[in-house]
């Protein structure tokens, strides 16, 4: 039997206690955080998911509303409220005549936050609201395409649509509306629904929300408080409360983050990339800064009605004379990838084997020579009539990144003998008049926000050229008209076979790159500034925001 002297025994005891204490400290869970405060730069003016379209509203509602389907961070269509994604392969989607029948079954555990089940009646009600011309719904196309909804039971329904399109099972816009709350506000006066909806008259009514959180408080212009939905059957979200604070000034947003007023800045509606990168350099050690290229396609629309730009050789020369790699590397730390067409690399229909325009000044010069633009006085090229190769570019005022890019364009094109005059306009003027009425002389620089596999009908189809005759509808601001492109767009919309569709998409991108109705620049990136302890937030880079997966966020 071993025996110890008293001091030795005490020493062993102390060591064991110390070891136990260290073990206990190591295994102690990170201090739980009950509240997460998120900073965004815009306040949602209203909360009805169907009325008006606003990024701030989509962001806030993504915590509290679950659509039937969304695109995930891998840009794949997935079910959020449905049990199985309907496809032709699994038999839940079928062709019927010229249209389709698509059957969904809602999750059995889906509940509004007042305990009522989310059911087929809520989907049918949303369709009734959406198709009513007076209801004020922003995007009504998806509702108009539906000819009928067959309700099979409380959770299962079949949607009959009037055409066969590749996105037949994407049910994003047509989320359920709580019929038990909203029907009484809609049916007596559909034209007044937008002013009577409970989303704006009784915003904290739990019956309006079916996500992991519900809106518990709204202070107009200041913040929105979200609390856990007691009836949420999915994984329990980590935070008891989420506060979304609106700070419009970007410098104040940063200051609030540094002073602890907010915990994180949302990438969807926070700082532009440039200040995010500057913030990362200064304070990157304290925060996680995540950047992700998005679907926002920064480009220069060319007015093809202008005699100079009607010549494809000039358009190609302009792109060849631009060192876009250096531009994104220098200005955006290489986080915004160079675009070769309007389809980003993350989209499954992206094609790599299309014409590309790597920086090549010799080739650009040769093309300009061939087009009749010879070097002239002051280094600016002139044509046979002695006209200078001088182009006007208009872009949005107050956008620092664009102003910097415009300066780079000016400098690089000058080296190629092209004079560029830059003009900036407030977004409201640019998008309300200059581009929509095709009033720009040569070039307009801005971004298109699209969705995964977004068919460019509105921007490239010849029927979509805005003109007085069609009441300035359509977004083909370049005035691009190519029957081959029209045929490809018509075909790709109705092609349900994925490999054949991918081939059509390749042709679209190749034709776009060859014709260059616009000059592709780069895909913009979202910058998220997060506390180091926050894990599980995965930027999507598309229109479906990160809070759709808020139950995966955790504090470690």
């Amino acid at each position, binding site marked *: 039997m071993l025996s110890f002297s008293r001091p030795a025994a005490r020493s062993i005891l102390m060591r064991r206690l110390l070891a136990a204490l260290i073990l206990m400290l190591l295994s102690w869970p990170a201090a739980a955080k009950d509240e997460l405060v998120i900073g965004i730069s815009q306040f949602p003016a209203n909360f009805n998911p169907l009325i008006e*379209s606003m990024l701030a509203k989509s962001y806030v509602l993504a915590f509290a509303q679950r659509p039937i389907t969304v695109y995930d961070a891998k840009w794949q269509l997935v079910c959020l409220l449905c049990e199985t994604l309907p496809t032709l392969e699994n038999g839940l989607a079928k062709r019927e005549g010229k249209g389709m029948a698509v059957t969904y079954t809602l999750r059995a555990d889906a509940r509004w936050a007042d305990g009522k089940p989310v059911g087929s009646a809520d989907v049918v009600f949303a369709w009734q609201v959406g198709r009513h011309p007076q209801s004020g719904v922003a995007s009504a196309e998806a509702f108009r395409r539906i000819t009928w909804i067959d309700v099979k039971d409380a959770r299962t329904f079949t949607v009959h649509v009037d055409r066969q399109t590749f996105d037949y099972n994407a049910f994003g816009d047509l989320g359920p509306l709580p019929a038990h709350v909203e029907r009484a506000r809609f049916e007596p006066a559909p034209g007044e629904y937008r002013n009577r909806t409970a989303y704006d008259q009784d915003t904290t009514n739990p019956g309006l929300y079916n996500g992991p959180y519900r809106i518990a408080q709204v202070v107009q212009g200041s913040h929105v408080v979200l609390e856990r939905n007691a009836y949420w059957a999915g994984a329990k979200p980590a935070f008891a409360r989420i506060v979304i604070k609106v700070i419009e000034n970007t410098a104040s947003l940063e200051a609030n983050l540094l002073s602890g007023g907010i915990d994180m800045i949302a990438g969807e509606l926070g700082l532009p990339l440039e200040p995010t990168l500057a913030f990362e350099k200064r304070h990157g050690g304290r925060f996680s800064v995540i950047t992700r290229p998005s679907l926002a396609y920064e480009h220069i629309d060319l007015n093809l009605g202008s005699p100079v730009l009607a010549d494809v050789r000039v358009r190609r020369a302009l792109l060849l004379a631009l060192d876009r790699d250096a531009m994104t590397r220098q200005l955006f730390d290489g986080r915004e990838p160079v675009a070769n067409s309007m389809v980003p690399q993350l989209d499954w229909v992206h094609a790599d084997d299309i014409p590309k325009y790597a920086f090549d000044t010799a080739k650009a010069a040769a093309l300009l020579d061939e087009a009749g633009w010879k070097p002239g006085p002051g280094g600016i090229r002139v044509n046979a009539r002695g006209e200078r190769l001088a182009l006007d570019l208009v872009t949005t005022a107050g956008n620092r990144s664009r102003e910097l890019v415009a300066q780079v364009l000016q400098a690089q094109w000058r080296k190629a003998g092209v004079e560029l005059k830059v003009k900036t306009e407030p977004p409201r003027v640019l998008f309300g008049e200059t581009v929509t009425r095709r009033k720009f002389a040569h070039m307009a620089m801005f971004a298109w926000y699209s969705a995964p596999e977004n068919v460019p009908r509105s921007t490239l189809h010849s029927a979509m050229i805005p003109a007085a005759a069609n009441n300035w509808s359509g977004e083909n601001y370049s005035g691009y008209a190519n029957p081959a492109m029209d045929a490809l767009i018509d075909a790709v919309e109705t092609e349900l076979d994925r490999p054949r569709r991918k081939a059509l998409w390749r042709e679209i991108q190749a034709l776009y790159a060859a014709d260059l109705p616009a000059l592709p620049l780069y895909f913009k990136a979202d910058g998220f500034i997060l506390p180091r302890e926050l894990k599980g937030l995965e930027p999507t880079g598309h229109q479906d925001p990160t809070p759709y997966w808020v139950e995966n966020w955790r504090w470690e």
Partner: protein
Amino acid sequence: MGVTILSRLLQSLAVLVAMSFVVYGLMGLMPGDPIDLMIAGNPHLNAADAVRLKALYGLDRPWTERWLRWLAQVGQGELGYSRLHARPVMAAMIPALVNTAILMASSLLLALVVALPLGILASLRPGSVLDRLVNLVSVASVSLPVFWLGLMLIVVFAVELAWLPAGGMAEVTGGGRLAHMILPVATLALSGIGQYARHMRAAMIAEAGHDYIRTARAKGCSPARVVIRHQLRNALIPVTTIVALEVGGLFSGALITETVFAWPGMGRLIYEAVMGNDFNLALSGLLLATAMTLVGSILADIAYVRLDPRVRTP
């Protein structure tokens, strides 16, 4: 006096109708509308949606027709609905109005409490060290851009020293709001102090040269009595005019300060309404500010009568 006030009120009503026409016209002539902007930002919206929404909100009609309809509606005591906020205009406006009144009244009060004594003291010894110091402070106060001053105060007191919150007054209630008010109120007050101090100083110096001041001194009045009872009373008249004109500002807000400090007030509300073509809300907000300025002007007239008996009508 009653007749004068009634006449001024009728004039004010005419000014308000004229202002509503001008404001409506300027908004109506702004190129583009938010539906076009919405389309640029939402790939699911198409041209047909734009046509339908413009018709629904009446944005496809001439602005003169919409203004007449609005005027008739207001004549019946109905301000209508805010298109952006999907609620009655008053419901959208009242919380912002309260916030703005708190911010602007506190800062105005603080500015006056500091500026008027400074201006008076500086005027007593023109050219003295104190006078030069007050002039320096005044010039600095008037010259510093409000957004820069606000951001600097945030950087020093919220980020570096962590003594005060950087904003977010609406997140707390009761006494907790005081801490959130300090920086925005100080920002606005600091930018107002220079203006009021200079006006006060100039008015006091101008009065000091008048005969009645010399007479008061000759009668043996104490220097304090001369300054307070005689000089200050008359010097307050121009200052009152300036302060009265600020009454409109109490209700129209301070856009830059509200934006920097995330203060949900009228400045931001009106700006968003104007940019979003929310005619009902923008017009109500702007006309309220105009009306308050007119009321302030009438109050100033009444104050003149109290301050200067010569103004009284027989």
